[in-house]
């Protein structure tokens, strides 16, 4: 009998997106209820390592589409292959990334079925998955069900589910997909520089800065910066240096509030919140962030929140487990130093 659960393995430059493995874990759990095995799907070029990894994480079968036409992710090409492979599945799982949000939407149209993005929890309602997902940037939750159409397509939010243990002794049956891609309307020319460091959505620890990072009047900007706005940005960059140093000690990612991004202190890629990235790390350290409702919406599910703010009435303290009333410029350097010593770095 063909497997009922398919898991799409997302990867970039030879690295599996960690949430793909979480999706494999969910697939195995689901199989206990609806039966059958779990099939993984890996598309790309020269992907043997990724195929093998999918096997080690407990799939029974890996469908491998290895072709020059699939060298780079392109929605149209990937969707056509995946829609054919997973057409008879009951459940098709994706990790949630920029690529898969697009891909899952395309496949849902091909197979005329429902899509449930950003799933953070699930239960079964009969043979259908009743999935929980945030709306209004997590201010509310909905339970969503795809009652009749199949496959039920879910993208799983990063870090919402446990990553299963690898078993290097386990290997899956590999099924080669015949890939036949004609002319495509898109052509990938290349890539920009990769993001340095830990990605925000995968990070176990995030250190974030807000508007407060420029708030150090005692810092003299270099004489050659005369423009007031640029002086402010320069001061903010000194603040973000302190944040980066703490992040380095903790192997953490660096985040920012919308205020800091809008003021050009740091790139938009780092923005956490309703109009940025929604994150759920084990530890979130907010420095100089007052906690506007839009920011809280993007990080409120963090396991432990630490707030460092000059204003004792800042709303961020209401969500925090630990708080320090103080200037981040005074608090971060000794905090970084103390952690470095205690962690033996």
């Amino acid at each position, binding site marked *: 009998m063909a497997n009922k659960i398919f898991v799409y393995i997302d990867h970039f430059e030879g690295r599996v997106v960690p949430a793909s493995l979480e999706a494999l874990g969910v697939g195995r759990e689901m199989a206990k209820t609806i039966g059958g095995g779990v099939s993984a799907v890996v598309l790309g070029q020269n992907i043997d390592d990724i195929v093998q990894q999918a096997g080690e994480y407990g799939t029974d079968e890996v469908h491998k589409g290895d072709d020059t036409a699939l060298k780079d992710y392109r929605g149209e090409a990937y969707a056509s292959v995946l829609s054919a492979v997973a057409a008879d599945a009951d459940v098709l799982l994706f990790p949630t990334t920029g690529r898969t949000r697009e891909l899952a939407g395309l496949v849902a149209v091909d197979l005329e079925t429902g*899509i449930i993005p950003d799933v953070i929890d699930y239960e079964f309602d009969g043979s259908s998955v009743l999935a929980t997902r945030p709306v209004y940037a997590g201010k509310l939750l909905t339970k969503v069900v795809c009652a009749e159409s199949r496959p039920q397509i879910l993208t799983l939010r990063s870090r919402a589910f446990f990553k299963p243990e690898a078993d290097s002794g386990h290997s899956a049956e590999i099924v080669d997909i015949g890939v036949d891609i004609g002319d495509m309307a898109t052509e990938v020319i290349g890539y920009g520089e990769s993001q340095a460091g830990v990605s925000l959505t995968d990070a176990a620890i995030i250190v974030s800065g807000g508007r407060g990072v420029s708030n150090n009047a005692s810092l003299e900007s270099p004489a050659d910066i005369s423009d007031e706005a640029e002086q402010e940005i320069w001061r903010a960059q000194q603040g973000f240096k302190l944040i980066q140093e703490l992040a380095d000690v903790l192997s953490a990612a660096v985040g920012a509030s919308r205020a800091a991004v809008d003021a050009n202190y740091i790139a938009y890629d780092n923005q956490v919140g309703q109009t940025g990235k929604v994150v759920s790390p*084990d530890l979130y350290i907010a420095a100089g962030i007052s906690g506007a409702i839009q920011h809280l919406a993007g990080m409120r599910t963090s396991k432990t929140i630490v707030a460092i703010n000059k204003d004792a009435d800042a709303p961020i303290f209401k969500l925090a*487990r630990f708080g320090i009333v103080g200037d981040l410029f005074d608090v971060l350097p000794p905090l970084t130093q103390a952690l470095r010593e205690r962690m033996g770095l």
Partner: protein
Amino acid sequence: MNIVVCVKQTADTAAAVTVENGKVSWGDVPMILNPWDEYAVEEALRIKEAHGGKVTALSLGPENATDALKLTLAMGCDEGILVSDPAFAGADSLVVSKIIAAVIDKIGDVDLVCFGRGSVDSDTGVTGSQVARRMGWPVLNLVSEITDLDPDGKTLSVERMLDESRQRVRASMPIVLSVVKEINEPRYPSFMGIRKASKAEIPLWSKDDVGLDEVPQSAVSWPEIFAPPKIETEVEMIEGDTPEQKAVKLADRLLEEKVI
């Protein structure tokens, strides 16, 4: 360039959204143009200003949801269309994409459809892709820059934000793009624009106008909507005489509690 920009009217993001008996309320905050869509409107207008053509703003929603469209007109869009029909209530993205694709088909000869990266309410971010697939067009989501656009050769090049890196892609039109906020800085509507928009009639397209005989059944439904469990935290304020003392104490507490 014949450009369509798809927008949604949403509650202001500053709203403290609440739910009672399955009914969502956002208090008395104003309804606004979905913040992501402002960037899509701005980009569409910039393309028109550079290459000529027409920008049509398209929205699907209740029949009184004209404020967002009025704002797009005030910003400079040539025309707004509100697609509204009681039969569309509860439509999921699969059905919404079918409706929007039908409208784009009806408008005809469209080169480019722009979306914001998602809406701040339902937050699915898949409608643009699904419209593209229905049209048989390519889609490029999360575009942070259009680096090149040739209206005669019907090609464009973009840079888009993947999670790990920027991907540079060349594509042919017609195409669907979704844009991120980095792409531009949306303009404020001009005084003249606001006056023009306030007088504008926004045509309402029903399912018959769209040309859909039958509205397909949604594949997904959301039987429950509820407030997330309250996070019960008691903040432990770290005290000390100096910032250094507080910092050291915090480091110790984080290790004691095995947070790190």
